[in-house]
């Protein structure tokens, strides 16, 4: 099994792996704060326009959001199992599980895209472009502005996560990870779990009334 390169600032690989993973956790903490600003805005505007938010949420198609929830949760499980498989020394299983994760992530984006198309067609667009006739209110406008920003930012994260997973798959194919040393794999999948966790919070806020 090939060993990863040891940076000269580290005394051994364990220290290096630990630092890499710890760094990822710090980064995820930072990412959470990025989303938290949007959650705070959502809470404020919802308390300002409770009725409009209710109506707008009821209008959103629950099936799309829920299907996406199941997709992401299952993909996250696959990502975790991919690491488990690597620990058991089964890199081909890891590769299969990563591929499954990627397919599910792409499925998420397809469903999200279909939902966006519906919104675009009916005019439930953010801010100045909002022209949906059924709910011509400031509150619904605020809801859809936030809806687009929150899901848009999340979709960007899904896309970034897919790139990371793709890169990890290439690394696994090249045999870069071993039973003992697979810090990169763990870091990448941790990022995917963040994508999943954010959706767990977006789903009730945007789809459940």
């Amino acid at each position, binding site marked *: 099994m090939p060993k990863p390169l040891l*940076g000269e*600032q580290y*005394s051994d690989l364990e*220290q290096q792996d630990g630092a890499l993973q710890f760094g990822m956790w710090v*980064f995820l903490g930072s990412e959470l704060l990025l989303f938290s*600003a949007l959650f705070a805005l959502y809470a404020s505007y919802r308390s300002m326009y409770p009725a409009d938010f209710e109506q707008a949420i009821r209008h959103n198609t629950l099936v799309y959001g829920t299907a996406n929830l199941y997709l992401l949760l299952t993909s996250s499980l696959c990502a975790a199992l991919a690491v488990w498989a690597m620990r058991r020394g089964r890199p081909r299983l890891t590769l299969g599980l990563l591929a499954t994760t990627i397919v599910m992530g792409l499925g998420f984006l397809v469903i999200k895209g279909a939902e966006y198309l519906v919104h675009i067609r009916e005019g439930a667009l*953010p*801010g*100045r472009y909002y022209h949906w006739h059924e709910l011509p209110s400031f509150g619904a406008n605020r809801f859809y502005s936030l809806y687009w920003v929150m899901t848009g930012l999340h979709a960007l994260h899904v896309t970034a996560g897919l790139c990371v997973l793709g890169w990890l798959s290439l690394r696994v194919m090249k045999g870069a990870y071993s039973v003992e040393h697979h810090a990169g794999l763990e870091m990448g999948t941790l990022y995917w779990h963040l994508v999943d966790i954010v959706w767990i919070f977006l789903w009730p806020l945007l789809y459940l009334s």
Partner: protein
Amino acid sequence: MTNPAPETAPVLPIAGDQPDYLHWTSGVSSWLFTRDHKRIAIMFYVAVISMLGLGGFFALALRTELLTPGRTIMDATTYNRLFTLHGVTMVWLFLIPSIPTVFGNFLVPIQIGARDLAFPRLNLASFYIYLLGALVTIGGMVAGGTDTGWTFYTPYSDQTPTRLVPVLVGIFILGISSILTGLNFIVTIHRLRAPGITWRNLPLFTWSIYATSLILVLATPVLGMALGLIGLDHGLGLGLFDPAVGGDPVLFQHIFWFYSHPAVYIMILPAMGVISEIVPTFSHRRPASYMAIVVSTIAIAFVGFLTWGHHMFVAGISELDAGFFGALSMFVAVFSAIKVFTWVMTLRRGSIRFNTPMLYFFAFLFLFVFGGMTGVAVATQSLDVHWHDTYFVVAHFHFIMVGGSLTGFLAAAYYWFPKMFGRMYDERVGMVGAAAVFVGFFVTFMPQFLLGNMGMPRRYYSYPAHFQWLHVLSTAGAFILGSALLLALGNLLVALVNGKRAIANPWHSRSFEWLTTSPPPKNNFGATPNLSYSPYDYSLTEEQARAQASSR
């Protein structure tokens, strides 16, 4: 702790005899693509000093314009753009990165006995991201310019005819650099400490960089979001904060200050860390209380997240909120006072030497206490209603940011100059520079307290004639301050070429960075040192400390 290592213990060459970091390779690309934290620190040094010069130049132009009530050298629109440019440059291009990216980068690994930061490539990336952000920000300012002030308040920022988006994109990029820098420090301080260094003998400067990094990592993303949303509002008509379509401008202020108030502690905590190193070294005495400084550092970082509302007393927040925010803001003053008293108590019965860094400490002490006390005053609602958005507030925050952070930066520049470049500066010129910085600063900003109290609003192009003498005084001070800064930095530039060679520990400090040679070798130490004693233990002689560090 006071026991020196037994004399029979094998003494490792902790300083080593490798070539120093400036000379072990040469050529432009050995600098541009370096992963050595010390070389990256030097590149940051050049960059932030240039930004200081730029921001200072803008400040002098503004002060020149304010010499007369009417037009002096520029029209009102240019003036509005210029004070925005001054604020943005000083806050994001100089103050926020200044001490952490230069001295933090250089010294944190050495102070904890590590060979480098945890992620050297990320460190280099954060330098280039900073450069890119600086180029985009300044380019956007020059090409389009924006006149909102550095705070970008809505609804004006939704409507301003100037081009806002490039500047916001630039600051967003700078934020990414900040987060990566903070992340790198946190992981380094957790994972790469040499044997013997615990959280109880971690050098105080490293502690302050640690606390600063926590704020960088947790607050900067919120700024990114605030700027992103204001950009979408301005560029795409998202209208999230636009009252014309039911948005709430006060919410923008909440999100903006959730970052931008802790950002004040990003600027001042590292300066406090510098001071906490200088005072024990030049008093030749351990700090009156190590724990008091550590606890107040962490407490300021924490409470700093809960005080943002004091910027909004007149923006329409509830009285209950305002009361909480006011009281919590005063907590920061309590913890700052704990630091001030600890430094002063450290002087007591110390054997004090007056070198330039120590002179900067005294300037810092006076200006910071002055700025801090007026901070308590403006954290009081009833007083703030009178002073809000006047020169009083301008003077207050310049006392903290210039009197505190910039003075701390200069103190660090002089204190660690021998370590960083292996040469000594001219002490007399250094002291004259420090005194002149103090005088120039005081003459610039003291009149602004008076102006503010008389009702002079900030950011105004014109003013009644009877304010003029104070404005003229302030402008005169600004030019003294500008010349003093040139003198202080010029002195270091001259020393870079002509200075006497520095020994490893010219200040006879016990702090760990002085154990290695000046300038340090590429890997900082010949062998990993054993740092199980306190970096402020002056009951050890230099030889004993060195023996202890070399023992296994």
